[in-house]
């Protein structure tokens, strides 16, 4: 069994707890002194840094939500002067919904270490060719796995997303052994490889797939198509990016990098901390971050934690695949989509806010349809004029969301309403 940082990945629970306590106490003091936003939140609860003496005091701290991040946008939660910051990453979406995260060089190193742990857990070492087909740019997928692969010393192919033929050509020519991308893209690559009869020529042995929900059935299909072992990875930009947790050979949940992130499960209604093994909302506190430490950040992901001993030898607590959300956010092809964003675009484009989002999964790829009710103002006797309005709407939605929906114009009052309230989202995906 190989580990990237065995001293922490396999540390005793007491050691991990001691590391967490020490880092938490320091982080709380630092944000209290340097970040007015945190100081105000803590003062509202009558807290000073002296109240936080160990990780056991974590639950005294106030929660932080995406709304706080938006309110503090862009610099309100920055814990260091900008001169010490070297990188920005951002979540998808724009106007009002964007979240920006800041990194010092040390923050990047730790993030990359986390991804390196995931690559090693998936059987990677410096002899591997790591094929990164996550998007590069503001999205954390590409940069995270790219950095992790460098840390491991593997040959790194910064493919980014798209251009499937070129992806497969590089895979064949350079003998890629580990594929990193979204599970839906892995399935698509697998199908394309099978169609071309190239399955015997690829050298892949493992895949690290994340940024969207996927089922065990989908895992087995991808494993069969590509003849690999498929590993899950979890993360969120606010906390660092992919590598907050990662799967090991046992494939029964993702080990959380607890030396950097403390996980809690809470009741999303009351905020009460729930005992291990109970289903609830996942909350993270980043205790190693210099530029952008977040205390008790509510992920809105519903999941379960479990500290049963793992056959891989890691002692890091495991989280199950998230089972849903405690808010209305949709994750479509790895992109975060809020129904309210769609509403904003519709109103800006002169459409009524009567719409319905229909998400489904066909051949392992998310389909994203937005149905909009036709209005007399939008209607015309020529297809050309209606199509051009439809196209403008798709362009504006793409600009807002970073993903193109299929827009369908439907008859007025045809969108189902239940108890007078329209049903905005129909998610048909079975995951």
């Amino acid at each position, binding site marked *: 069994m190989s580990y990237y940082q065995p001293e922490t990945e396999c540390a005793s629970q007491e050691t991990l707890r001691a590391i967490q306590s020490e880092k938490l106490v320091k982080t709380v003091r630092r944000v209290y002194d340097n970040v007015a936003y945190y100081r105000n939140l803590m003062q509202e609860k009558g807290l000073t840094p002296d109240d936080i003496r160990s990780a056991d005091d974590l639950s005294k701290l106030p929660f932080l939500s995406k709304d706080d991040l938006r309110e503090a946008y862009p610099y309100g939660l920055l814990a260091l002067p900008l001169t010490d910051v070297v990188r920005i990453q951002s979540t998808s979406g724009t106007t009002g919904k964007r979240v920006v995260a800041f990194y010092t060089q040390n923050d990047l190193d730790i993030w990359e270490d986390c991804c390196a742990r995931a690559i090693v857990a998936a059987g990677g070492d410096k002899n591997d060719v790591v094929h990164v087909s996550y998007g590069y740019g503001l999205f954390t997928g590409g940069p995270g796995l790219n950095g992790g692969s460098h840390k491991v010393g593997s040959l790194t192919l910064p493919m980014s997303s798209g251009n499937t033929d070129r992806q497969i050509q590089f895979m064949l020519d350079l003998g890629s052994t580990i594929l990193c991308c979204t599970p839906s893209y892995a399935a698509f690559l697998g199908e394309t490889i099978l169609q071309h009869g190239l399955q015997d020529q690829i050298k892949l042995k493992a895949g690290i797939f994340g940024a969207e929900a996927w089922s065990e059935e989908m895992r087995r299909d991808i494993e069969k198509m590509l003849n690999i072992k498929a590993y899950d990875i979890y993360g969120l930009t606010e906390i660092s990016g992919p590598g907050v947790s990662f799967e090991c050979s046992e494939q029964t949940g993702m080990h959380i990098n607890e030396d950097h992130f403390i996980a809690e499960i809470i009741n999303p209604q009351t905020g009460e901390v729930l005992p291990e093994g109970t289903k609830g909302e996942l909350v993270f506190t980043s205790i190693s971050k210099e530029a952008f430490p977040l205390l008790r950040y509510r992920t809105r992901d519903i999941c379960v934690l479990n500290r049963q001993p793992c056959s891989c030898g890691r002692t890091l607590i495991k989280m199950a695949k998230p089972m849903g959300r405690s808010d209305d956010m949709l994750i479509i092809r790895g992109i975060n989509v809020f129904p309210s964003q769609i509403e904003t675009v519709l109103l800006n484009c002169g459409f009524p806010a009567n719409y319905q989002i229909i998400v489904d999964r066909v051949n392992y790829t998310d389909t994203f349809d937005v149905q909009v009710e036709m209005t007399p103002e939008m*209607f015309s006797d*020529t297809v050309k004029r209606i199509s051009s309005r439809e196209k403008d709407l798709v362009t504006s939605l793409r600009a807002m969301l970073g993903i193109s929906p299929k827009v369908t114009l439907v008859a*007025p009052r045809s969108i189902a309403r239940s108890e007078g309230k329209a049903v905005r989202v129909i998610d048909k995906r079975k995951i």
Partner: protein
Amino acid sequence: MTIDQISVFVENNPGRLAEIVAILGNGGIDLRAMSIADTADFGILRLIVSDPKQALAILRAAECIVSVTQVLAVPIEDAPGSLARILRLLSEAEISIEYAYAFITRKQGNAYVIFRVEDNPRAVSILAQNNVKTAGADEIYDL
């Protein structure tokens, strides 16, 4: 001269077209001509009717999405080459046709072609200069 054409948004559901036509029939509206433009998601039903004002009121009351467009109705002799001549006149004047459809009448024994163009007055005057009449409302609605 131009006449009123009524366009109706037809959602892509089985039976929707039948419903719309029945609404008009029940309201005592005669259809003179119709054409349908279809896309993947919806259709546009274009109608020339006996009483456009009444038809509009009935359709709106039935919560249909409708619009009224001025189109040209050109009587055409039922003989080879008649349509080609008119199209040539329009194309020589660089008037582009967005769509067109034709119907035949029992009474007069001739055909009418409905043209939708960008610039109605210019199209009417070009045709008039070449002795091609455009039918008026009375002529068409009362067919």
